[in-house]
């Protein structure tokens, strides 16, 4: 009886211990692999061989696949999350870099870096259903929470294009600072944040009026401005904090979403670009391209608590929604 009780407690503790274990998929641009990290052990448990130059990476809404854009193979590969092998492909058009899905998970919108196009794919049919001409070197992609507006940023044209995802046409363009790399809506949909890598700012755009209402600037004590190059933006689901990856500055800025004030800079790994929250929002994982690792930020504590070595030139991180 006593033994059964102890075993029961031990089992319960094991289950509790594993309760936060998720899988993070990290695209390694140079080694042409995806590293699978177990967030309980904080270690790589599998390395998946994928196509050439994997960059943009995200789960499908049904969590059955992780999609990875293989730019030099002109395709998006679908990693089956039960077998962790490449199971299928999507016709992405040339040189896919970043992509985002419609809120219902049916459509995928892909930035084709060398083709000045956003390709629209019906995921279930594995078929292209449209294409929209945008500015030069399209990269950042975002969809408004209601799914009515699609955003693409073009790195050379320095614009955020507002696209009607039904009519497949650009309805407005907003000029931002040089080399816009990433776009993210606040979860409540009232603001669109666009990072400018060379400009060194994040433009906060009113998506209803198509105007920049504020620019967030970054300054790290003792550091010249050149390496401060904002790229990835991740905003907590409660709309309170935004994390902005500052590239070769090796820091992530923590920004108050309401006041747009920078609260803190966290030293992570080298050349930090893209990031993802764990589904419980407790951790933020950052892909550090030069130090070839992933930093783990404890979100409530605003502290870097772990580092996981991955493949060469890690670019992006995908985490499940739940």
């Amino acid at each position: 009886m006593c033994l059964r009780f102890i075993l029961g407690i031990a089992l319960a503790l094991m289950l509790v211990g594993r309760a936060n274990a998720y899988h993070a998929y990290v695209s390694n641009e140079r080694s042409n692999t995806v590293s699978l990290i177990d967030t309980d052990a904080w270690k790589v448990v599998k390395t998946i061989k994928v196509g050439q130059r994997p960059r943009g990476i995200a789960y499908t809404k049904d969590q059955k696949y992780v999609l990875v854009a293989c730019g030099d193979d002109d395709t998006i590969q679908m990693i089956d999350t039960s077998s962790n092998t490449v199971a299928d492909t999507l016709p992405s058009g040339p040189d896919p870099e970043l992509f985002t899905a419609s809120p219902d998970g049916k459509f995928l919108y892909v930035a084709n870096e060398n083709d000045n196009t956003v390709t629209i794919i019906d995921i279930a049919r594995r078929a292209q259903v449209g294409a929209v001409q945008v500015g030069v070197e399209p990269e950042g992609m975002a969809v408004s929470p209601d799914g009515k507006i699609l955003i693409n940023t073009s790195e050379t044209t320095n614009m955020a294009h507002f696209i009607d995802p039904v009519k497949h046409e650009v309805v407005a363009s907003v000029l931002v600072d040089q080399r816009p790399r990433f776009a993210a809506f606040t979860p409540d949909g009232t603001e669109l944040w666009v990072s400018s890598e060379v400009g060194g700012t994040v433009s906060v755009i009113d998506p209803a009026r198509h105007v920049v209402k504020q620019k967030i600037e970054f300054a790290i004590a003792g550091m010249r401005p050149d390496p401060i190059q904002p790229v990835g933006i991740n905003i907590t689901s409660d709309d309170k904090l935004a994390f902005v990856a500052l590239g070769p500055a090796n820091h992530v800025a923590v920004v108050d979403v309401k006041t747009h004030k920078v609260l803190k800079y966290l030293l992570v790994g080298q050349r930090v670009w893209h990031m993802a929250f764990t589904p419980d929002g407790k951790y933020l994982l950052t892909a550090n391209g030069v130090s070839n690792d992933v930093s783990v930020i404890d979100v409530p504590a605003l502290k870097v608590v772990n580092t996981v070595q991955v493949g060469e030139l890690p670019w992006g991180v995908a985490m499940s929604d739940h």
Partner: protein
Amino acid sequence: MKRIGFFFILFTIESVLLSPARAADPRYPDWPCVQPKVPELSATSMWDGPSIADVGASWQDDPKVKDLVDLIAARRTPLDAAKKAISEFITGTPAEKQKKAKEVFAGVFDTLSAQRSEVMDGLERVARKEMDLAGKIEFDVGNLHTLEDKTDADQAKVKTLASEIEWSTRIFEDRRKTIRYVCDVPTTIEQRIFALARAIQQTLN
């Protein structure tokens, strides 16, 4: 060498000189790498430990610190061996550890930043030579065409000039390959500084 061959050489040279890497940043017209040029590193991009502003060059005054810095900064020292040497050296009371950590990091940062600058200066120097050589090849090819267009062209001169162009082109190509390889070196040095900075900082945790 046939005329079409020289057109190909010129095309290659032009495409190298006008490549996106060269046009990427107008502030550094001689920078030959695809990797963006970051002229100076800042210690704060590598280190969020105690400030090293007060250390200056004083780390060189302690022979033990200097020896350790020489050992761990050298690329021939495996990173694991460097980390072991760091943890063996940075010991004592919290105040002693902090002093040693600051000095070792300042030494690593100064030493490897200087090496990185030397490599970057060298890259730009070779890139300038490459530009000059490209200009010479272009000039020689033009002269060769003028010579060849003459009905009574001196064949010996044509042959000599063609051979010179071929030789210059070979040097141009070899240098181009070397530049591409060396372009990775500044990043390799940054990786080492960062890895050592992390190891030093861990001794304070």
